[in-house]
């Protein structure tokens, strides 16, 4: 997807009143629910510090913990697969499913599977993949992608969903009643769960010391997918591991409170193995696919590595003044909002998505709410520099570094530096801009970009230096 798409899509989204109302309502709700649960600032500060420490420690020892996780999972009877790219990941899924002759698959919500385009890959093999999370089911019916990582169908209102269900579900009556719409999906999907050959899920955290996959959800579809079919395949990005089980409670607490303003989700599903002999249900085989897809490259840089702390709560997008206005579909890649602005360019490369780090006013709202203290604003600035080919000493360049470098911009910054190094030049340029700035043509490089969305700036008639020299600084 070309970078210019963000601008065009954002522009369209801003003009779509229905879409903006849908997002406004949802984001206001999510923000106030979260705020209520973090009203105790002392607790928030301590919990957040613990969450950040857990994630930072996990990343520090990532290779070691991944090996420990693999060993423990294997001891527990869970098979582990490694995928360098999304194509490799999809191939692993196809291989496991075809060995089992699985044709019908039910799937719980998983952003990493969206990143892989897993559904398309499996459908191309003639495998039916049904998204079982209600929000995912809605957008799958409408052939859309998630517009939010927690609330995938948040861009739709109930009238739109009512129309969709009445058109796409057999024998469904038109109803705008949320309970009846939910019941309709329940009836369709229960049959799918009972008939499925395999279930697919994501992973919220993988515990190295016990070999446990932790999944959170409210609906029960995740439990259905991981319990009812005879085969369960889970997939996660390689950053999801934590060392110890006791590190899970703070992560869960931060995740559910930040995401939806709940003290806990209805279900926390901890899977430590397939069905044991004598057990009456549960999958006979459990697999875990660990995906890299650019993450080890992100890991190589000590600053950018912080991107991998993310626990996918979505709080950054709920609070982002850009996201809440343009919605999730304006962003290229599958992760929208602030986390997408730092993650997507690092995965897909700055050549195609280098505009994303610029789609921010650096207001810091995301940084304030991030439960694991990811310095998103600093990372946005870093990625802007990377786009211009400026990797700091000791850092590892991002994919596509330097692809946005413009010689004209370089020239401007060099001149700027000179002006601030040479007092005479500084005085001269200040004099010129204050006296003759009005005469700059509107389409000159200095003004053109600025004036695409703003009115023409008016230069002060005296510089600050001149004013201070003339009037002095009043002492209180």
């Amino acid at each position: 997807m070309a970078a210019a798409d963000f601008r065009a899509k954002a522009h369209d989204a801003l003009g779509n009143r229905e879409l903006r109302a849908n997002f406004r309502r949802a984001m206001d709700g999510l923000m106030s629910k979260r705020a209520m649960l973090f009203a105790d600032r002392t607790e928030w500060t301590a919990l957040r510090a613990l969450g950040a420490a857990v994630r930072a420690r996990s990343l520090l020892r990532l290779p070691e913990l991944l090996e420990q996780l693999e060993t423990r999972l294997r001891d527990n009877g869970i098979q582990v697969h490694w995928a360098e790219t999304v194509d490799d990941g999809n191939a692993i899924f196809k291989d496991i499913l075809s060995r089992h002759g699985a044709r019908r698959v039910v799937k719980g919500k998983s952003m990493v599977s969206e990143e892989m385009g897993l559904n398309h890959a499996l459908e191309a093999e003639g495998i039916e993949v049904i998204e079982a999370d209600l929000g995912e089911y809605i957008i799958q019916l409408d052939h859309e992608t998630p517009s939010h990582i927690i609330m995938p169908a948040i861009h739709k209102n109930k009238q739109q969903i009512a129309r969709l269900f009445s058109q796409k579900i057999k024998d469904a009556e038109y109803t705008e009643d949320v309970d009846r719409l939910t019941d309709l999906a329940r009836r369709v999907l229960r049959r799918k769960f009972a008939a499925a050959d395999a279930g697919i899920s994501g992973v919220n955290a993988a515990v190295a010391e016990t070999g446990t996959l932790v999944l959170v959800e409210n609906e029960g579809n995740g439990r259905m997918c991981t319990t009812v079919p005879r085969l369960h395949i889970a997939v996660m990005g390689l950053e999801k591991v934590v060392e110890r089980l006791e590190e899970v409670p703070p992560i869960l607490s931060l995740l559910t409170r930040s995401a939806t303003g709940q003290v806990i989700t209805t279900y926390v599903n901890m899977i430590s193995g397939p069905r044991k002999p004598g057990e009456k249900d549960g999958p006979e085989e459990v697999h875990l696919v660990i995906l890299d897809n650019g993450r080890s490259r992100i890991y190589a840089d000590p600053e950018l590595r912080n991107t991998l702390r993310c626990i996918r709560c979505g709080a950054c997008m709920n609070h982002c003044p850009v996201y809440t206005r343009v919605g999730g579909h304006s962003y290229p890649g599958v992760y929208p909002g602030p986390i997408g602005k730092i993650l997507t360019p690092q995965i897909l490369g700055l050549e195609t998505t280098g505009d994303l780090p610029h789609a921010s006013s650096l207001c810091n709202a995301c940084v304030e709410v991030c439960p694991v203290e990811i310095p998103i604003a600093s990372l946005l600035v870093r990625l802007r520099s990377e786009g211009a080919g400026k990797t700091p000493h000791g850092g590892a360049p991002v994919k596509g570094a330097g692809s946005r470098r413009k010689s004209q911009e370089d020239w401007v910054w060099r001149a700027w530096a000179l002006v601030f190094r040479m007092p005479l030049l500084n005085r001269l340029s200040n004099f010129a801009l204050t006296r003759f700035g009005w005469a700059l043509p509107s389409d000159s490089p200095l003004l053109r970009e600025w004036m695409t969305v703003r009115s023409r700036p008016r230069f002060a008639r005296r510089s600050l230096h001149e004013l201070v020299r003339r009037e002095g600084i009043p002492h209180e």
Partner: protein
Amino acid sequence: MSDARTAILGRLRAAEGKTPPPAEHFEVVAPRGWSGEEKIARLRRLMESVHTEFLDARGGDWTALLQDWLAQQGLAGLIYPPDTPLGRRLAGQWSGATPLIPYDRSLAEWKEEFFAQEAAGLTGTQGGIAETGTLILWTDETQPRTLSLVPPVHVALLDVNMLYDTLWQAMREQGWTNAMPTNLLLVSGPSKTADIEQTLAYGVHGPKRLLVVLVEGDPAFS
């Protein structure tokens, strides 16, 4: 795919940090010092706020109370785990109108029938968590995973002497690290969703209703 494994781990190892790990302070998830009654009250308040129903059978006969409750709901049956102490107690004392259905075969043997039952599923619990209003469920040979998932009503027995302040406390005091079951579940209400316009709707895929039966000091749970 072992090549992928080697390559990925190799890249990660090449970049591994040498900085000392930040300290973790767990006080914020540690026990709160709540009394027994405070724990019960808090668990109840939180679970009721998400539509969980309660039956207080402390000091009484839970089988009789449950019989009455089930008869009022007009459910087709009560599916229960026959090879557990509570299952044996139930079967031994049952005289109610609601038929008892033992979960005594593998899921595959009765999947269609099991999914179609308009019945309640009964499970024990391994205690509860007051901070979040949560039940701890272990699954094993005697207590299947689907018993608390597929039936439209889930009935869970909770011994009030097994309440913990926080999840962190429960996992440490119960020694989960050394003995994780194949599937450990935390359940904090009936199945729900807010995927349509942020409007809460109950009973989307799992149970539509959750009934917690509070018991105390019953030998079937020791």
